[in-house]
């Protein structure tokens, strides 16, 4: 059962990492305009065709 010593912290650590990522995305305003984000990805004006 010593395997639990590795697996349980690993599982919790991954979960916490995801939670921290979510909190960061929330704070940086990535949920303020969900409809816009869905369409902005289709705008390719930042690609320069030479």
């Amino acid at each position: 059962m010593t395997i639990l010593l590795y697996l349980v912290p690993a599982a919790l650590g991954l979960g916490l990492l995801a939670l921290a990522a979510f909190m960061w995305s929330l704070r940086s305003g990535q949920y303020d305009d969900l409809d816009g984000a869905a369409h902005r990805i289709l705008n390719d004006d930042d690609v320069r065709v030479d």
Partner: protein
Amino acid sequence: MRTVADYSSFLRSVADGRFNLELAVEGISSADAIAEIESALASIPGLTHARLNFTTRRLTTEWIRADCDPSPAIRTLERLGYRVAPFMGDAAENEEDRYTRWLLRCLAVSGFAAVNVMLLSVSVWAGNVTDITPETRDLFHWLSALIALPAAGFSGQPFFYKALRALRQGDMTMDVPISIGITLALGMSVFETAHHAEHAYFDSALMLIFFLHLGRVLDHAMRKRTRSAAANLAALRIPVASKINAEGYVSEVPSDVLVAGDLILVAAGSRIAADGVVETGQSRIDASLMTGETELAVVKSGDLVHAGTLNQHGALTIRVTAAGSRTLLSDIEKLIDEALTSRSRYVQLADQIARIYAPIVHIAAALTAMMWITLGSSVHDALVVAIAVLIITCPCALALAAPVVQVLTAGALFQKGMIIRSGDMIERMAEIDTIIFDKTGTLTLPEPSLIDASQLSNDALLIAGRLALSSHHPLARAVSEAVREKRNRLEPYPDAQEITGSGIRCIIDGVEARLGSQSFCNVTVPVWNGSSSYLAFRHGSEAGLISVGQSLRPDAVETIKRLKANGYQVMILSGDHSDIVRKVASELGIPDWRGHVLPKGKRDLLMVMKEQGHKVLMVGDGLNDAPALAAATASLSPATGADVTQAAADAIFTGKRLSPVFDMLMLTRKGKRVMIENFGLALIYNLIAVPLAVLGYVTPLIAAAAMSGSSVIVALNALRARRAETFNS
């Protein structure tokens, strides 16, 4: 006098020395607008950053200095066909945004904890039927406690606060049994873990919190959308006043910074921004938004004019006597306040149920404990069973039953152009049996429209329509709209010239064409009949009058017929002259009507009908309707209504059609029916789960399955709320 639209007073200072201007944008129909707007603004001098929020339909612009002039940006957007108005921010909206973010954080924490504790719980459940050692099980339970206690303590806060507030006020809401259930589940689980027991309920408590937050986050997301739409409409309606400063320059300022003594310029065709006395100029004023009367009032210098009325003819300069529209409003506001108190007594279905439900389950739990003790089991075992009863009856499905339906119904209404103010109006709207309509601006279109152009040939009317495009005047707009409806494309003449107070002229095929006042076009005037207005047209030898006035909404007759067919009693209450009201009533087939009704009269009549047991829906747009809107069981106002009126209404409908009234009633009726079904489903769940819990058969596995199962069933059933028989289906 130089007139320059100067919006720089709307700039707000933000961090690192930059300045911010937020604009509400109307007319965005597709996502192409994002790229179109942002790239069009890229070359405006002084503007460093422009970003359109597609959800709220607001554009945030950033400027390098405070004295930058944003008007080129606004003109650019207007040329692209968008209507733009400075948006000043809304304190209530910011508050709500902060709360939604907090709920999202709580949702994330409870979700994280629920998943991890479930991971441990499933191992324990699997181990219990195979070969888990008591030591490993204890370790897993303690680990669960380590995750669950802080997570629940954080993410349960919204419930705990609301439950405390309700208890302090001696009230009962769903938050109370929820908080008790969560606390007991966690407390008992810690106690049981310390005594090496087989079962712990950490996962149930966390899952409960997660599901409930999910419902509330959805509810807030919907409300954010409708709230920002309503705030944008408000910003677009009376955006600015043209203030004349000491040097004679005109600058556009927010109308709420006007003070008594300021001088403002009101162009023909715009609304007057504040109460005041006319200094120079002469015009006819349309006060229908205030009083419901369609007859135009003639004003000249020295006359008092009210905020919100429409200046129809010449330009006026007005000395402000009261900012906003205090003088006329104060009486109306008092009536509204009195009326609103009667509505605040309405108790929502969910709270009605909570008041009965919470005492019943708590008594049931107490009786269970006593029963087991009488049957000879230990106090500890009896308490464990009693707490299991409380955990399984913790009203997850009940608490979701109404909000999920509200979210979906509000979403369906929003798609049909209706913006609702709160979820609880759905229940009130569903009970309606009588509908009272205001006439002017509600049954009729808020803007004047073309009534008769038979004096002109089709070709002449086309020229008139194209000329009219060069003016913002409501009469000109009525002509261009009417011509545009017959032909898809209508282009303005590039060299058409508008002469303020007179009309528009342009050389076409070498001959001058004019559209405007009778003297400007040299056309003889018939006797003015008071309610409809005339625009004159001349092109060479061809000349004639176009009459423009109030006309019914295009689908009004059909909508009234459908309402009557669905068993609603329909009535008209108008402040306008009885003759005009009678004509409209007979056109619509409404036998029950009253004309010449004062604001107080409207409210009183409505109160009498309510006392007789009728559930009354009031639909109106004018300031004179506001007290009646507040007194009604539920109320609706078109988006063109007065500010105060919209604030008193439960919902706003947009567009030219009247059918939203019908759709609103059908969708809310259906919504309420689904809500009651949901409460029924939640009750059936309890009828099955409670006996099992009382008999001591409920393990954490059963609790988890039953609670999430019932929540999912309720949420799925709520999807049916969107399918109602609406006007176009």
